[in-house]
């Protein structure tokens, strides 16, 4: 139960590989985090450099005392992280965040990932298969160059449909288009850019299918103290503040912290009211 026991610890970089242009796979040795991580767990890394906050990144895979990250080079912190040399020691806090719900044995589930949103799904697919859930995946991206992680999911034995907006690999479709052409499922899991997640949540609510999404925001503390990474949620949502409504505020929703109340939220709880 990773979310109950984050630790402040040190991870040692043991491997690094550019798996696609701008996409990096880094392997770390860190027993405390590797052994406690669960699907959707993330870590907050202290990337060397003049940065005031840690870099939160989802855990891609785990194996015994090791975990790996799969991320896109995007800004100074990810660039510096990608170029650390093997053997470097990095301070990390983790595993952080809540977890996906695993449905009953025999249920059918589908994973819908957009681009680097594939990250939480290696651990999830592994756990779903262990739990006897029938699971397949759709991985979408703008172009072939923005796809990552597909082969690793297939190596777990998953049926993975690939689609790209420009048709440069797989079907020429969005992940949501592809989802509409699949048979009924008991559970949908999503992670990806906000526009995709918004469409996914709308689809799931219309189809009356249970759906959980893992969200991303710019984090300050990564622990829930600073309230910098909130998402509007339905009032009464168990992850909301539960604070009474403000008498002088016309907003009828509540906020939840993506970093510590999430990153996983039920599609029906997320209110897509602010800029996407």
């Amino acid at each position: 139960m990773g979310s109950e026991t984050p630790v402040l610890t040190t991870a040692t970089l043991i491997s690094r590989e550019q798996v696609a242009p701008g996409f990096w796979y880094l392997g770390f040795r860190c027993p405390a985090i590797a052994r406690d991580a669960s699907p959707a767990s993330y870590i907050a890394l202290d990337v060397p450099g003049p940065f005031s906050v840690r870099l939160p990144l989802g855990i891609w895979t785990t194996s015994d005392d090791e975990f790996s990250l799969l991320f896109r080079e995007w800004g100074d912190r990810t660039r510096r992280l990608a170029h650390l040399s093997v053997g470097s020691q990095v301070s990390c806090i983790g595993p952080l965040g809540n977890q996906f719900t695993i449905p009953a044995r025999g249920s059918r589930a589908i994973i819908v990932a957009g681009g680097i949103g594939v990250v939480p799904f290696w651990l999830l697919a592994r756990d779903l298969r262990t739990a006897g859930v029938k699971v397949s995946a759709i991985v979408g991206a703008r172009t072939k160059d923005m796809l990552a992680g597909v082969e690793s999911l297939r190596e777990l034995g998953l049926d993975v449909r690939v689609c790209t907006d420009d048709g440069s690999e797989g079907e020429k479709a969005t992940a949501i288009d592809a989802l509409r052409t699949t048979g009924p499922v008991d559970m949908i899991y999503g992670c990806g850019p906000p526009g995709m997640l918004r469409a996914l949540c709308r689809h799931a609510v219309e189809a009356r299918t249970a759906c959980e999404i893992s969200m991303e925001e710019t984090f300050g503390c990564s622990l829930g103290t600073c309230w910098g990474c909130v998402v509007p949620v339905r009032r009464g949502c168990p992850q909301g503040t539960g604070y009474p409504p403000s008498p002088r505020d016309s907003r009828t929703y509540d906020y939840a912290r993506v970093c510590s109340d999430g990153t996983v939220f039920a599609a029906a709880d997320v209110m897509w009211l602010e800029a996407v």
Partner: protein
Amino acid sequence: MGGANGARSEPDLRVDIGRVTLANPTVAASGCYNRGAEFSRIVDIAAYGAITLKSITREPRLGNAMPRIVLTPSGMLNAIGLQGPGIDYFVEHEAPKLAGVPTVVIASVAGFTVGEFVDVAARMDGLPGIAAIELDVSCPNVDSEGECFAVDPRATDAVLAAVKRRVKLPIIAKLTPNVADIRPIARAAEEAGADAISLINSLRGMAIDVERTRPALANGTGGLTGPAIRPVAVYQIWETAQTVKVPIIGMGGIETGIDAIELMLAGASAVAIGTANFRNPTVAAQVAAALAAEAGRRGFASVRALTGLANPGFAGARWPADRRPNPVGARP
């Protein structure tokens, strides 16, 4: 150096903020530590001499829309918007947990009218576990076209004097750096009865999202924190320390022991740490150890002797920079 005296006892780390004594000079800054529970999951928060709670307002507040944070060079801009439960919920659900916090707790009050400051501070007065109240007079004053209280000595005086009439706990006035001259504001706070002054609050700033051609924060402007603002903090602490006699809790961009020493030498009696917790959750213990080492290196019996040491115009009571007594049997 200490070697001449041969003393081996550790310098006394205690400092006094009004009639509250802290075990060491480090304070968690308001807004960065919530009520302490989150950091307790990964570090021992008793490393802090005190923690300052996230500010409480009279009414519940949902806070600003997203985005609320943008990272900037050597710092970050935030505009959270004082999201919080309001004083009723705080008193009922959150205050009872404060008795379990393993260090001194300073509550923080934010208000948009003098009456709100008084109401909230009065409700906190006497709650078990709260040792002092910080007033975030850097808030906009809705009775004065949204101008911040702490840019005006009269508005600062009005808040402090009204709260002091009603509240027994020590009161700390938290001042904004967004002024041309901090001295009249600090003087007004002291004359109105503030038991201590804390500064600096965040510096107002702004960033533009170049791709989307709009402000990066939903609120437009935000407060800049982090090491980028430290020289501003040192300067304003310096000026304030020449103006008032009450103790100063200095803050603004502290990341290391050296940074904290710098603020103490300018005139701070204690040092608050905010944004640096996000990157380095053990920063308090490191800073406290560095302050002890610095006092020891100079042969001081107390870290209090560091306060104002670099500031010839320091107006407060100087702690004697005494060398430790020679141990028994040592030769003079």
